[in-house]
């Protein structure tokens, strides 16, 4: 039913779901990267050098935003389910997404 695809609840649910999938895929890679430190600080440093390429930087930004989006929209679900929060306006969705992008912006401003 294509009409539902523009409804804010559906958009919220899809952002939440897709960011969750992205995180589940990313996480093992994240753990593997950190574990290169098992071979010493130099090994981790050489790995980090790889991450300075623009494409990787963009992906990192994407993952941070995905984490923030997933958390914000997750908080929305928890508020509705456990605190009987009656979310009926676009405001809640907008706030969640805006906050997530604020996190992404903070990353860009801070990094490098």
């Amino acid at each position: 039913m294509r009409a539902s695809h523009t409804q804010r609840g559906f958009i919220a649910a899809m952002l939440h779901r897709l960011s969750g999938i992205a995180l589940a895929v990313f996480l093992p890679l994240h753990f593997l990267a950190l574990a290169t430190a098992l071979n010493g600080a130099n090994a981790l440093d050489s790995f980090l050098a790889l991450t300075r390429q623009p494409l990787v930087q963009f992906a990192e930004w994407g993952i941070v935003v995905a984490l923030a989006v997933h958390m914000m929209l997750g908080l929305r679900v928890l508020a509705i389910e456990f605190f009987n929060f009656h979310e009926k306006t676009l405001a809640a969705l907008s706030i969640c997404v805006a906050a997530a992008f604020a996190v992404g912006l903070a990353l860009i401003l801070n990094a490098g």
Partner: protein
Amino acid sequence: MTGSAAALEVEIWRGAEEGSFQIFTTPRREHQTVLDVVTEIQREQDPTLSYRFACRVGICGSCAMMVNGRPRWTCRTRVNEVIGEENHIRLEPLRNFTVVKDLAVEMTRFFDKWKDARGYFEPGDKPAEDFAVVKPDSKKRRAVDEHIECIGCGVCYSACDVVEWDKDYLGPAALNRAWTLVNDVRDKGNAERLDAISKSEGCQACHTHMNCTQFCPKSLAPTYSISGLKRAVFWHSLFGK
């Protein structure tokens, strides 16, 4: 768009699960509802067109169908609201139901799920000795009041994405009714009811898309009933209360 000189193009599903769309042209009239349009087509142009209606004044919920991809009551949908630029309306049977013929759908599974969710009052073994005293402003009575007006029209069930993805999902209407009974202080079947609505096809499958709340023609909010059920199951599972 004004004036009855303009014609209306109406695309209607014909057939059952297999079929095709048939295009009709019908005059635009002032204050037309989509039900008026379907009725005029069936009476004046094609008597083989099958559809349902009863009260035609927004009380019974029988006339629900997909209008331009949205489930709504056709008697309460003015053509002006849905006409769009091209003077075109698309009518389909309610999504998530099996099509019987044309615009009429099979409602049995919908009501079976109502039973599966134990959406019925359980008086218990012993008859009550006296009238139950339920204060109208008590928390539980207010919870019931918010959600009791459901007439089983199927629009929420039709709108629900989880019903589309999981044919076993009990659906917003059945769960909404279960919630009103969970809050009915006279009901004796709560333990079984909470069990019934917390299986894999139960309330936990709801992902808060809120289509049901968005489309309910009676402005009910099954999302919050289902959240209430999730909380009830949560506390019941952890603390048995």
